[in-house]
């Protein structure tokens, strides 16, 4: 599918509107629909860049949160009567913590209410995760107000250093494997951490020197190359977002 270009704020505004709608409707089915829509957009429109690839991590994180929430929600808390699925032994608690129960009967109602609450919360995470992976942080930085610039630059440096760090880790691990060393465990961690730390320090110093040499921070005002403009497509996406939020 053809990749379209959007204003860096478009997907953030759309996500905000969609998240509002999800919160107002408060239905797991609507939340799943929203996740489906956002995923479809991300998988067709994202760039092959570190932030684009981050969406898979967002999805994994959301699934983890739902699972953990469901397990804890079922084990701890107020029992909801209904169809009993199975029983877990009750953990005896001292008398000074009344009203809390760990274990006991697990009902279908309890499980489904945990899962559906979890789904709504995770849908929010996925929606904003999608906005983050659809927008280059560098382009976002350029439309942010100037007083956020310093902050933005540190974010940009962090986003560009992180993927490099990941590739450095795999490179150093490979080298250690080539030396016939184990790459797991505490000793291995030390062996990898030391060269990694040295390298990332050297790299940050290089980057700082390069930015310094190119006049960063010398002028209080910064000019903007190619100011980013709103297009009809952006208006359409944002209107759609507001319509969904309004109708919910």
């Amino acid at each position: 599918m053809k990749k379209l270009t959007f204003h860096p704020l478009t997907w953030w505004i759309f996500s905000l509107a969609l998240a509002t709608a999800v919160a107002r409707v408060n239905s797991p089915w609507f939340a799943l629909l929203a996740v489906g829509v956002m995923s479809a957009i991300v998988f067709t429109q994202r760039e092959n860049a570190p932030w684009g690839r981050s969406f898979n991590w967002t999805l994994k994180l959301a699934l983890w949160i739902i699972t953990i929430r469901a397990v804890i929600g079922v084990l701890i808390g107020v029992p909801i009567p209904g169809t009993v699925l199975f029983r877990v032994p009750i953990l005896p608690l001292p008398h000074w913590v009344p009203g809390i129960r760990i274990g006991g009967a697990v009902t279908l109602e309890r499980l489904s209410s945990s899962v559906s609450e979890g789904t709504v919360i995770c849908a929010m995470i996925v929606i904003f995760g999608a906005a983050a992976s659809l927008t280059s942080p560098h382009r976002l930085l350029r439309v942010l107000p100037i007083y956020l610039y310093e902050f933005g630059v540190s974010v940009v440096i962090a986003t560009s250093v992180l993927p490099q760090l990941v590739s450095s880790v795999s490179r150093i691990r490979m080298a250690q494997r080539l030396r016939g060393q184990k790459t797991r465990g505490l000793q291995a961690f030390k062996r990898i951490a030391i060269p990694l730390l040295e390298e990332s320090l050297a790299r940050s110093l290089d980057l700082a020197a390069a930015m310094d040499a190119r006049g960063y921070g010398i002028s209080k005002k910064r000019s903007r190359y190619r100011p980013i403009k709103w297009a009809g497509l952006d208006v359409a996406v944002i209107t759609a977002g507001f319509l969904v939020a309004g109708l919910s």
Partner: protein
Amino acid sequence: MIKFSNVSLIYPNSTTTVIEDLNLDIAEGELVLVIGPTGSGKSSLLRLINGLVPHHTGGILAGDISVDGISTATVKPGALAHLIGIVGQNPANGFVADTVEEELVFGMEALNLSNDTMRKRVEEVLDLMSLSQLRSRAIATLSGGEQQRVAIASALVAHPKVLVLDEPTSALDPIAAEEVLSILHRLVHDLSLTVVIAEHKLERVIQFADRIVHINGAGNAVVGTPEEILMNSPIAPPIVELARALGLKEIGTSVREMRRMTSQLRGSLELSTPKAAMTSTNSVVSINDLSISYNGKSALNSISATIYENEIVAIMGRNGAGKSSLLRAIAGVSENSFGDVIVNGINTQKLHSKSRRENVGFIPQEPSDLLYGQSVTNECDQADQDNQVSPGTTFSLLSQLVPGVSGNTHPRDLSEGQRLGLALSVVLSANPRLLVLDEPTRGLDYQAKRVLTKMLIDFARVFNRSVIIATHDVELVAELATRTIFIADGEIVADGPTIDVLLSSPAFAPQVSKIMAPQPWLTVADVVRAIEGDK
């Protein structure tokens, strides 16, 4: 344009002066080359020009440096950004933005230039550096040569009067290096830009230099024309070594000059035929149908080869041709490879710990990745222990390779050549059947390269081992390799004795062979041997 008056530099916590009482006057439109052994202070000299040293690094600076009349002591490096463009040793570490165009404008935005100016300059510099095809590409996806060009372009957009480059071609293949250097040459001649370059691979840059600053390591620097400096310098490219060996009165700095000087000599020699080298028939490595693909893109396409005892095989090819992928697959640590590599009867993917160390020794592009000890002694003891050899073996190996390394030094504080020596000793203490090296000569001076060459030849001949080496360094291949495999686009395009492969491609032919063509001689030693045999 650039004036050093009585400049001395000492780094904090150091007892030796990096530069002592240097006087240097670089005129506008001059291309000055800075040479010297590794760790002699070339980078420091370059970074003194825009004040990164000592503003950024600390250190005590005596004397004065002024650029276009501005003393660097009085302003921050950033305030000279419109005057001096600087490209570091590893340009990838200095990139701020993610696409080429955004990277180019970063400096201009910081200098608050108007939008019209920026537009014009971006177009100008894209054309000048032939980058217009790449303007919206992500920098991370570019090859080494392209990244180097982007780094130079982003220094040039500020319209500096001085351009400073630290080893601009060390990571590039010969063709990419030539592209970058010819662009610099054009800038000097068309725009009268003043260029200062530090470089180890003199054979690549010497013909472009107007003057040379030779730092000898003890803080002293000599300035002069290439002919003056190179006549007696211990650092000399093959072209100069050849002039010395042939007893010429003058030295030439380009192939053209040297051919003119040697025309009489060449005319008097009969055309010799290269004799076939002796090869062993004991195969050590066999590579069968090896393919690698990353995310559906194929990096290597069913490669097969057999490597024998005593062979030193050079793997050459352009940046991004798949050399490093091939080496990793040979060592058995590539996760995306199909087909198999057998070393000494064992599939390399199944090697681990001791059996890995005894069969395949690997020196990665960054030798320091292998090292994690807190001192040289620490590192050597670990290797002795790992390989169950008598204590001290690794350290004595190191002393043979690079004499004079103190055991208490932290590996990080070693020079590039010493660090490679340490990594090599650690790997060689296990006496592996096959030694694999990925780009070992990046940042090595001629002296260190000679030591490496001798050591690798001994290792292959005396111990009946095999060596595979991936490199861009044509001169090293000429000196060292018995066989060369040329890779392009993931496929083997040439595989044969070094002499045949190198002579068949003008871009990859060493300087000596270009000068002595059509004689099949690759190195100064070849020429001397042939001429003496004649007499």
